[in-house]
C-alpha cells in the first residue's frame, strides 16, 4: 500500500499521495527533487500542492493554499511529503539479491 496523507478540512476529506504521473507533472512544471534537501521550506508549498494531483487534480489552488496555511507541524509535514514523493522512484529500485557481500550502513541522525 502506497504512503498516503489524509487531511480533514472543513468537513471534507482529502487523500494526498504521489503517483508516477503526478511526479511527472510536477517535474514538467519545474519542480526539482534536489531542492527538497537544499531549500525544504521553500519547496514545501509546491510539494504540498503536488500531493493533490493524484486524487484531487482539479481542486482550486486557492483552496490548497488555504489548507496549507492551516496545516500544523510543517516541519514533520516536509519529512512525510518527501518520503511520499520518493516512493514512486524507490519502488522501481531493486534490492540486492544475495544476502552476502552487501554493504552495511548507518545514519548519524
Amino acid at each position, binding site marked *: 500500500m502506497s504512503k498516503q496523507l489524509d487531511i480533514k478540512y472543513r468537513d471534507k476529506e482529502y487523500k494526498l499521495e504521489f*503517483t508516477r504521473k503526478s511526479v511527472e507533472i510536477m517535474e514538467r512544471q519545474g519542480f526539482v527533487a534536489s531542492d527538497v534537501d537544499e531549500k525544504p521550506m521553500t519547496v514545501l508549498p509546491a510539494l504540498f500542492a503536488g500531493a493533490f494531483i493524484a486524487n484531487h487534480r482539479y481542486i482550486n489552488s486557492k483552496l490548497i493554499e488555504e489548507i496549507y496555511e492551516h496545516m500544523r507541524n510543517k516541519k514533520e509535514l516536509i519529512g512525510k511529503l518527501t518520503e511520499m514523493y520518493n516512493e514512486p522512484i524507490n519502488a522501481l529500485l*531493486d534490492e540486492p539479491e544475495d544476502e552476502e557481500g552487501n554493504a552495511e550502513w548507518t545514519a548519524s541522525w
Partner: protein
Amino acid sequence: MDGELVSSSPSYEKEGEYKNSSSFVTYTEKFYADFPYYLSIGMTYDLYWNGDASLPIYYRKADKMRNDRKNQEMWLQGAYIYDALCCVSPIFNPLAPKGTKAIPYISEPYALTKEEAKDKKEKNEIKNDAKALNFMEIFMIENNKKFAKKNTENTGGENNG
C-alpha cells in the same frame, strides 16, 4: 536530493539500446526508462502511472515467481523426456537381440509433494498386499486340491486292500 539513482531494473532508450540507470537526471526519465519492462511483465499503463506507487515491487516479485515456476516446469518436462528415452533405448540398440522390447513408461506422474509421495506409497502397498493375498489364495487352493487328491488315493487304496 541527488538525481543519480542506482537500479538493477532493465532500462531502455526509445531505440531499444540499454541505458545506464545512474545517468538519469529526473525521476521522469527513470519512469519512462523502466516503463517498457513493467509493460512486458503485465502491468498496465494506468496501474504504472496512476496506480499505487509501490505496485512495481510486487510485480517484480510476481515475475520472479512466474519465471521460477516456468523453470521448474521445463525441468520436469526434461525429466519425463529423459525417462521416456531411457524406456525406449533398448530397442534403439542395433545390437539388441531379436524380440527386445521397450521398458514400459511410468504408469502415473511423479509425486511432486510429500503428500502425493505418501499416497503413492500407500497405494503401492495396498496393491502389493492384494497381489500377495491373491497368490496365497491360489497357492492354498492348489495345495488343498493336491491333499484332497492324495487323500482320495489313500482311502481308495485302503478300501481295496
